């Protein structure tokens, strides 16, 4: 292989260029196809030093290059070089060859690629040289021609024995073809033919040549062409592995992390830098936004300062909110509430007095034991059960708690008697369960059961003497405040013990009675007898009645009696309600007061606690021993059956004969025209009184005798009860007969109510009492004709007073007063004028007035008689109905 390449290489190179050089090489035969291990025979690899190269002008890469590797060297030069250098000469190995070289020039070829091991080689034969230089030129075109032309020339056929086979196979005629001619006899042409049916397969009709085996021709099949195909046999089958060995498998992975170098390289990368630059403004913007303000802040929520604000926004309504309703199935059935009071000291305890609805007549006196009146105590903690029952033989119309000792309750009965109860034994029960459970730990369950089943019933302690009581049902009863006492003559004196011991009651029998719970002094002598009496006969106390007022029982007589004679006419007023001025004695003011007190006496509050109401030991004082209170206002406002407001003094005056009798009332004004049901003093002003009755209510000022300073417009419904608000001086509540409550505010409107809470109850309202439960909770108890007690919560707006409300209300009253006075003056003026007019009229016509008067008289008489007739008729019709 190696031999061919250089040849072709050299030949191709030779065709392009012709080098000149010296020939020193002897020719050697060049054979193309002979390959030798390293180099062909006709070349000789040679190393030439740079000096030799320079000498011969065949420097590597300068004179001779890859493209031009041939250098003809002169034989003579080489021989000279050999001779000059001797053995050191580069040409020494080829010395002999060069010497034998026939031609003058020897070809030296630069072998850049070291094909033959050295950088140069010498062409040893001239023939080779020639071949390098000349012949290949012609060769290559020939070769090209050969390659190009594809049409082969037909070659002469050489027989290789195939014609014999052909001859054997070919078919030739071995002899001449024989000819035969067959024909039928002429005469037989055209003869009639006879056709008949024959069966095809009958034996005679055909000649059968059955094939039979000829033994001569048994050919043995020596060779048979067979084809074989391998077909894979397919079979579908399945296999299922059973998971016999269950094994828990888990994988744990780990997040890919960049190696340090990778990370660093990335950090340095250009793309990251660009990234950072591009996102920086956005990120800073967002961060700053976050820093500036919180976009998700809910301003509304942040504004709210707690539950108060939210409640406040909701609670716009100023209605009375029903807090609790109390009723008792047994005791309130078919009864109406005649009176209600809050317990002065215990929170959430209300007492209601129930009486029969229909029993209004005095005639129907209850028989002892069959029908008894009750005062029912309710508590907030237990709305469905009554806490306590105060029993009385007669229906109780009114009652009152003693101001100094809330355990004493006085009641006014339907038959005119005054009745007393003492509930000190049951106070703990009223206070609530915990106190009771402490006392009886052993029988706790029983105690509770008892309580649930039976409400404790307290029987009355004492009852007034029937003869000396009122003749009509007591309509109002009050304790005198513990600040003063009243003597037998009605003189107010100081109350040393600061106990409320006196009671005032009024009744439509035209009397106001003063009672004292203490024994009168006169009975002092009989005291030891009494005591003995009591010891001898220990009265069996079946009902465990407390013995507080044992001394009074059945012998109780009023202290004194105030009658109310009418001012102008004969007869008396029939009081329904009264109001007296509360007197606050100035203990702290004057020193002389203190001197009068017995030394060592504690102030009011202690007294009522320390001195347990041993009323039997108390004695009514004589007028002389106690100091009379001069500045006390002894006058009463009384509301009568006919709707008049009477202002009278309860002090007895001595008339000419020296006997004490009641003075005549100072004034009387009929405003209401019907039963007066409330007279109440304002808790803020001593001299402002609210009265309700008929279709009006009126506000009076004590001292102003001429009339009410404020008079309400006539309402469609009857005003059944009225009461002042305890916390706001200008607010009061009016109850109506249809069960609605009107709230009036004097500062806002004097002609119409601020708010009407319609249908607070289903029936006529009988009693309203406000109460301050706590600073936030103000209650209003409302009772009705059906025996129900409802407790309402007064909304905040109605119980929180506005700024300087008192002074404003004062001003209001002043204004009203002024107005009233002005009104009255004007009336007077008008009256005067009218009179003058009439007088003038009279003097002018003396005659006519007589006739006129006469005529008038006649007309009047006629009218009167007509009226009388009408009255009779009406009365006749009414006569069948119930008499009043």
């Amino acid at each position, binding site marked *: 292989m190696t031999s061919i390449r250089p040849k072709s290489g050299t030949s191709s190179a030779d065709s392009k260029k012709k080098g000149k050089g010296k020939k020193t090489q002897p020719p050697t035969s060049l054979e193309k196809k002979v390959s030798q291990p390293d180099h062909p025979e006709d070349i000789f690899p040679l190393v030439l030093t740079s000096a030799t190269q320079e000498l011969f002008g065949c420097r590597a890469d300068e004179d001779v290059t890859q493209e031009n590797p041939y250098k003809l060297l002169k034989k003579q030069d080489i021989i000279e070089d050999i001779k000059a250098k001797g053995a050191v000469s580069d040409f020494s190995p080829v010395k002999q060859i060069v010497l034998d070289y026939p031609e003058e020039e020897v070809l030296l070829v630069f072998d850049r690629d070291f094909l033959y091991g050295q950088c140069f080689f010498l062409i040893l034969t001239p023939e080779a040289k020639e071949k390098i230089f000349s012949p290949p030129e012609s060769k290559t075109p020939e070769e090209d021609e050969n390659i190009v032309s594809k049409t082969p020339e037909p070659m002469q056929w050489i027989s290789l024995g195939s014609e014999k086979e052909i001859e054997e196979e070919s078919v030739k005629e071995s002899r001449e073809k024989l000819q035969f001619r067959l024909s039928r006899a002429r005469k037989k042409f055209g003869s009639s033919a006879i056709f008949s049916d024959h069966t095809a397969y009958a034996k005679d009709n055909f000649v059968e040549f059955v094939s039979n085996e000829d033994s001569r021709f048994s050919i043995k099949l020596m060779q048979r062409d067979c084809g074989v195909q391998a077909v894979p046999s397919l079979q579908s089958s399945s296999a299922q592995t059973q998971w016999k060995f269950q094994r828990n498998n888990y994988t744990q992975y780990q*997040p*890919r*992390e*960049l190696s340090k170098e990778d*990370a660093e390289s*990335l*950090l*340095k*990368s*250009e*793309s*990251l*830098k*660009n*990234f*950072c*630059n*591009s*996102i*920086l403004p*956005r*990120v*800073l913007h*967002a*961060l*700053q936004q*976050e*820093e*500036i*303000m*919180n976009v*998700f*802040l809910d301003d509304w929520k942040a504004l709210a300062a707690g539950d108060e604000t939210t409640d406040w926004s909701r609670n716009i309504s100023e209605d009375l909110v029903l807090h609790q309703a109390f009723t008792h199935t047994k005791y309130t059935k078919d009864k109406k509430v005649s009176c209600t009071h809050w317990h002065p000291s215990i929170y959430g305890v209300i007492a209601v007095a129930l009486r029969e609805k229909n029993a209004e007549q005095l005639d129907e006196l209850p028989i002892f034991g069959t029908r008894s009146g009750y005062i029912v105590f309710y508590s907030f903690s237990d709305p469905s059960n009554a806490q306590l029952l105060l029993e009385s033989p007669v229906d109780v119309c009114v009652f009152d708690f003693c101001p100094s000792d809330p355990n004493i309750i006085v009641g006014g009965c339907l038959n005119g008697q005054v009745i007393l109860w003492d509930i000190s034994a049951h106070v703990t029960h009223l206070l609530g369960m915990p106190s009771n459970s402490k006392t009886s730990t052993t029988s706790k369950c029983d105690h509770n059961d008892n309580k649930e089943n039976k409400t404790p019933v307290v029987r009355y302690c004492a009852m007034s003497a029937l003869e000396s009581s009122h003749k009509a049902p007591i309509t109002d009863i009050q304790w005198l405040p513990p600040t003063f006492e009243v003597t037998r003559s009605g003189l107010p004196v100081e109350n040393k013990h600061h106990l409320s011991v006196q009671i005032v009651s009024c009744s439509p029998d035209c009397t106001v009675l003063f009672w004292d719970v203490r024994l009168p002094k006169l009975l002092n002598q009989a005291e030891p007898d009494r005591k003995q009496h009591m010891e001898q006969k220990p009265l069996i106390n079946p009902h465990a009645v407390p013995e507080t007022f044992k001394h009074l029982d059945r012998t109780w007589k009023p202290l004194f009696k105030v009658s109310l004679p009418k001012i102008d006419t004969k007869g008396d007023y029939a009081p329904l309600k009264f109001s007296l001025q509360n007197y606050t004695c100035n203990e702290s003011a004057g020193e002389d007061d203190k001197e009068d007190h017995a030394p060592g006496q504690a102030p009011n509050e202690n007294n009522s606690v320390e001195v347990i109401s041993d009323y039997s030991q108390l004695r009514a004082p004589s007028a002389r021993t106690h100091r009379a209170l001069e500045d006390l206002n002894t006058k009463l406002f009384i509301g009568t059956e006919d709707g008049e407001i009477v202002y009278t003094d309860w002090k007895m005056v001595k008339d000419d004969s020296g006997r004490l009798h009641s003075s005549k009332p100072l004034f009387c004004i009929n405003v209401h025209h019907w039963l007066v049901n409330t007279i109440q003093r304002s808790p803020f002003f001593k001299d402002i009184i609210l009265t309700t009755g008929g279709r009006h209510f009126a506000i009076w000022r004590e001292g102003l005798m001429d009339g009410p300073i404020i008079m309400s417009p006539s309402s469609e419904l009857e005003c059944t009860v009225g009461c002042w608000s305890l916390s706001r001086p200008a607010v009061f509540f009016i109850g109506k007969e249809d069960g609605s409550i009107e709230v009036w505010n004097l500062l806002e409107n004097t002609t119409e109510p601020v708010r009407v809470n319609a249908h607070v109850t289903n029936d006529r309202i009988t009693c309203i009492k406000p109460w301050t439960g706590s600073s936030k909770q103000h209650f209003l108890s409302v009772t009705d004709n059906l025996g129900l007690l409802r407790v309402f919560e007064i909304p905040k707006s109605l119980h929180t007073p506005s700024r300087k409300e008192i002074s404003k209300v004062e001003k209001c009253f002043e204004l009203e007063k002024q107005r009233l006075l002005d009104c009255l003056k004007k009336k007077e003026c008008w009256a005067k004028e009218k009179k003058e007019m009439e007088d003038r009229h009279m003097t002018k016509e003396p005659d006519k007035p007589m006739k006129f008067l006469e005529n008038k008289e006649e007309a009047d008489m006629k009218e009167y008689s007509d009226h009388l007739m009408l009255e009779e008729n009406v009365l006749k019709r009414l006569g069948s109905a119930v008499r009043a």
Partner: protein
Amino acid sequence: MAQLADVEETLKRIEAHKGVIGTVVVNAEGIPIRTSLDNSSAVQYAGLLQDLTMRARSSVRDMDPQNDLTFLRIRSKKHEIMVSPENNFLLIVIQNPCE
């Protein structure tokens, strides 16, 4: 070297901002490159937010192919997470709100 300083500088500037709790720079594969948090948190943030960002971006582009996600802010009770995707990288910044 100059390039590295720029990146460092930028990141330092962000980290120095008020309320910033930490930053994470994430490459295209979701591997955190550089972080100021501890490694496990960084890896967690990177993994979770990469997913979410891709989802967000695909949602934005689904609606409007011309559009692209520029910024993603997740506000939670405790802090706010801001993600800015760009150029195959992701920058996550966690900041405490100003209240």
